[in-house]
């Protein structure tokens, strides 16, 4: 059985039907990517999974546990964490405190310490800047902090929403390097990206979202060669 199983969710913003009967699943240890045009509903999907939005119908199950009935903050304790679009780190907290906020739901001190070393291993830059206020970090560092902060909650599944947005090309490379490292350390990841080429390189499977519903689902390799995907999402003529 899949680790995360999403079945036929429908989400509305007022009258706007943002997600239509959307289903997907993520297996343990996978990187799955979700690609799609602006406004296709990628962020909406992640927000629904992490409980910020409530679907009008459908189910989200993590290891068989129905999650739609929990509020957002309880979903974190059940092992899903969401790194939102635009990073959303706490600007007036220090890097260290930001990471501690990530571990808000983890009461086990021991575990926190091991997680922290793990984060610092993957993101040595953060270790250098522990005392600095989050708001003063550069864009790339903020993205690292957001990802590190998410790892602190010891999640089973990590959602990344456009980690490369607005980053310089060098940083895009290093962020995806980090994603690979996290995956290597055993993390299951659901990745939303505009940069389809790079996303499909790291992912094992992918979904293509069009106006709120899944248009295509396949392995990353197949998607990379898919005509339509190449044309629309990877910009190849």
């Amino acid at each position, binding site marked *: 059985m899949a680790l995360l199983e999403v079945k036929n969710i429908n989400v509305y913003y007022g009258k706007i039907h943002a997600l239509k009967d959307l289903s997907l699943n993520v297996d343990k240890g996978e990187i799955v990517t979700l690609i799609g045009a602006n406004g296709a509903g990628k962020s909406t999907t992640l927000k629904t999974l*992490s*409980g*910020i939005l409530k679907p009008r119908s459908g189910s989200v199950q993590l290891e068989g546990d129905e999650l739609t009935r929990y*509020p*957002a*903050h*309880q979903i*974190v*304790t059940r092992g899903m*964490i*969401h790194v*939102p679009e635009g990073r*959303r*780190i*706490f*600007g*007036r*907290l220090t890097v260290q*405190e930001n990471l*501690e*906020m*990530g571990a*808000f*739901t983890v009461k086990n001190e021991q575990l926190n310490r091991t997680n922290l070393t793990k984060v610092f291993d993957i993101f040595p830059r953060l270790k250098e800047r522990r005392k600095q206020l989050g708001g003063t970090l550069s864009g790339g560092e903020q993205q690292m902090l957001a990802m590190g*902060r998410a790892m602190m*909650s010891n999640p089973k599944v990590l959602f990344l929403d456009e980690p490369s947005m607005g980053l310089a090309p060098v940083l895009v490379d290093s962020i995806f390097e980090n994603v690979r490292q996290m995956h290597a350390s055993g993390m299951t990841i659901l990745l939303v990206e505009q940069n389809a080429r790079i996303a499909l390189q790291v992912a094992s499977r992918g979904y293509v979202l069009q106006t709120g519903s899944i248009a295509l689902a396949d392995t990353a390799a197949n998607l990379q060669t898919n005509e339509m995907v190449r044309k629309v999402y990877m910009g190849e003529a």
Partner: protein
Amino acid sequence: MPTKFQRWKERITATDIVMWFIGFALLVFIILGSILTLRAGRYTPVQWFDFVIYGLAQGSIYALVAMGYTLVYGVLRMINFAHSEVFMSGPFTAYYVAAYFYRSSLLESHPVICLIIVFIVSMTISTLIAFLLERIAYRPLRNAPRLIPLITAIGASFTLMYLFRGLYGTGFQAYPVWEIFSGKWALFKGLEIGKIQVFVIFAAALVMVALYLFIQRTRIGKAVRSVSEDKEAASLMGVDIDKTISVTFIIGGAAAGAAGVLYALVFKQVFFMMGFIPGIKAFTAAVLGGIGNIPGAMLGGLLLGLLESIGPALFLDGFNIAAPYQLKDAIAFLVLVLVLIFRPTGLLGERLAVKKA
């Protein structure tokens, strides 16, 4: 190339000139008044010392109430207009306990225990009111535009005020005297200091430091800070927003309840409108210090207390103005405007994040 004068003319606007002029005029007025007063030598150093102590005692009460405003402002970005009624409800209710102790002579035999109980009762009631207030009146409006919770708060303020008036009556009630606080301690050379003032200043400082540490050091405090920055991100970290906001109101309520008892110990009278003026003053203090900022609230409160106590004597006496103490609030507000002219976000306030363009 444009001439120097043209450059200057293009850049300095009339408003700058007017603003500087206003600021300058006020400053001159204040400084001149102070010099004249000091030259007249009307007050002895002991009396100046007394002014300071009175101001600090009053100011610490403002500061405690201001904490409630600032905390709530931090998490909800709203003026909790009803906080003044939170401040009123506790001590007004605890009066009946104090009166009972007084009637049954318990107050004489166990003053400290009685005081603690009065504090507990007052803080409990204030906390409860603050908590319910948030649950009933503010929670459903989490995402409403800014002015709407303000109106609800004003409505809640009226409701609470007149509810308590209905329950306990229009008249005021006078707290009994705690003998341990009456009298003064002599320091040296005729310098004396009232016991109650000392107690108020210390108690308030204690509560404030405790609150500050709570917000800075504890897990819940961190949750409060993160919620005040970004609610959605905080909830993604597993923070229960509703609970955290409730906690904020509870802390603010407890501080207001404690401030209320201190107020009642100094000024004795409690009644249904007792919160209105201190509430406005405390909010002013919070703004003066930079709203949303806890040390700012403390600083603002103390400063406002000092201004009210010293201001009229220091700034106005020299001009021989009739009844200067009538203008003490005017002075306080003038200084507030003056501070905001030069620091539009209060003394310790950060520049309201000029939203990154």
